[in-house]
């Protein structure tokens, strides 16, 4: 009984304010597209990190002969220095390092020869030109800085390289893009909130007679306000559903059908990811509607 009554009220309200409701739907739709785009970019970044960080290593290059780095003042790294580095890796970095691999000069030369059988850029290198190194695979690649703190500046260590650095420009670009999307989303969400506020206010004013009588005969506050809240929430939810649909189409046609076909070595976001962020978008829409309607109704239909 109550439910049916409220639903009829809501439908009447939506019909009466059709143009405002449509504008609420569109503004929510656009703002949630931005929110969703930011979320998808972050998903993409996470996917790429997951894929690529498994492959990256931290290389601790030991001093070769004739290096000008201060820690290599004593010339090529001695046995004692190498042992000290190994001990430091075992004791101080034991938790961080998943696997340790020592590449001697001989092995480095073999790898080099396998890759460049005809010499590198015309010069014929020998085993003595190679450099010994420790290859560390970190349990968490983000912890590179700790490795650098422990091993950097140690005698016999020439330089420490993080292969992760190669991806940084790409991730930076993706993160900046998400930031821009989030910023636009914030502006659009503000617009949506104001629009929902106005819609509810209009609706409340046009139904002042009804709400006046409802209050007079003792309808509860919730009963008076619920139709208005539902109106805002329904409009926002429709916008959210449209946004999810829009993102799904965009991912399906731009990423899955086109980008993934032409550049196929990257793990892209899929439509499943769109569905995974759908609850987030719907939640944002509902929260938006509830917050703006509570603020408005507090002023317009108080008992």
């Amino acid at each position: 009984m109550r439910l049916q009554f409220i639903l009829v009220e809501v439908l009447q309200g939506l019909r009466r304010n059709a143009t405002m409701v449509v504008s609420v739907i569109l503004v929510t739709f656009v703002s949630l597209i931005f929110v969703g785009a930011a979320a998808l970019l972050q998903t993409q970044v996470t996917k790429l990190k997951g894929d690529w960080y498994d492959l990256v290593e931290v290389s601790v290059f030991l001093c070769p002969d004739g290096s000008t780095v201060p820690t290599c003042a004593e010339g090529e790294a001695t046995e004692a220095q190498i042992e000290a580095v190994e001990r430091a890796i075992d004791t101080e970095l034991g938790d961080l390092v998943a696997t340790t691999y020592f590449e001697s000069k001989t092995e480095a030369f073999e790898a080099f020869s396998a890759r460049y059988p005809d010499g590198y850029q015309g010069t014929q290198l020998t085993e003595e030109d190679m450099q010994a190194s420790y290859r560390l695979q970190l349990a968490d690649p983000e912890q590179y800085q700790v490795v650098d703190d422990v091993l950097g500046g140690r005698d016999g260590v020439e330089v420490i390289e993080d292969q992760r650095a190669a991806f940084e420009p790409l991730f930076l670009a993706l993160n900046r893009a998400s930031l821009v999307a989030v910023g636009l989303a914030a502006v659009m969400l503000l617009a949506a909130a104001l629009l929902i506020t106005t819609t509810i206010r209009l609706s409340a004013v046009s139904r002042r007679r009804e709400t006046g009588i409802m209050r007079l005969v003792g309808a509860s506050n919730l009963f008076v306000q619920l139709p208005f809240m539902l109106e805002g929430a329904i409009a926002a939810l429709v916008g959210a559903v449209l946004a999810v649909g829009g993102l799904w189409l965009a991912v399906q046609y731009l990423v899955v059908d086109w980008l993934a076909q032409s550049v196929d070595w990257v793990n892209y976001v899929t439509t499943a990811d769109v569905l995974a962020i759908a609850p987030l978008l719907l939640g944002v829409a509902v929260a938006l509607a509830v917050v703006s309607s509570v603020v408005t109704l507090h002023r317009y239909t108080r008992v």
Partner: protein
Amino acid sequence: MIRFENVSKVYARGARPALDDVDVDIERGEFVFLVGASGSGKSTFLRLVLREERPTGGRVYVAGRDLTRLSAWKVPSLRRGIGMVFQDFRLLPNKNVYENVAFALQVIGRPRHTIRTTVPEVLEWVGLDGKEKRRPHELSGGEQQRVAIARAFVNRPQILLADEPTGNLDPTTSLGIMRLLDRINSTGTTVVMATHDDEIVNEMRRRVVELSTGRVVRDEADAQYGRREDILPLVGPAPVLDAPGRGVPRPSVPNPRIVVQPEPGDLAAERAAEAALEQGAFDHDGAQDDADVADPPGVGTRSRRAMSRAGVEEA
């Protein structure tokens, strides 16, 4: 039932108080006229009973509750025990008669079968049987007020407040509305009616509380409206009223009055209501489901009273 203890109400800081130290005690089942000039505080009095306003000083007790301490979420349950009727009817123009009355029950969550049985009963009781499908604009003023009264009474409130319910109606139609209010009163409902209509007050001879600039200046049982000069002391023979022929006796017409013929619908409604009463429609053995307050001991049983009978029992 309604008790005002030293109640003051000031709307804006520094303004003249709308009510100033008002002390009134209305017993269960009483019929009280609230008279006074416009702006004397009658409407404020009614709004305080409904807790649409809160007093700035003193205490208001309604049906055993201290309204000055009543928390906001209990206000709806207070209002379910109070019916309110206005001068301008306040019906919903897009709903028909039946829907207007049913609306009052729907919004407080009464089950559908209750609404289906109660609404026709109360409509028959006010004399609007057969007009359920009409829209308010298709009804005469008197009929509209009957719908408004039906809406106010359909939930069997303990208190009925009426703010100049006859203010928009011709004298004969007003009389019909007053009979209805009297019938409601005779079911044990406390009725408080703000009015300017001296003829009705003089004819009914009930308790009269007179307000003047926010103070109670008179509170008598079996009272009359009072001389106009008492109520409006400042209005003398103003020049604009000094029309030619004023004060000249007109022997041919001893008591000149404009005779207003009420609309046939109003007369029919009154006859129908009388008939419904004879048949005992909407009899009041139904249980009050808003058992908000227990009766204070000693007050309660009231005999049915006819409109013509003067006299108010004072508890």
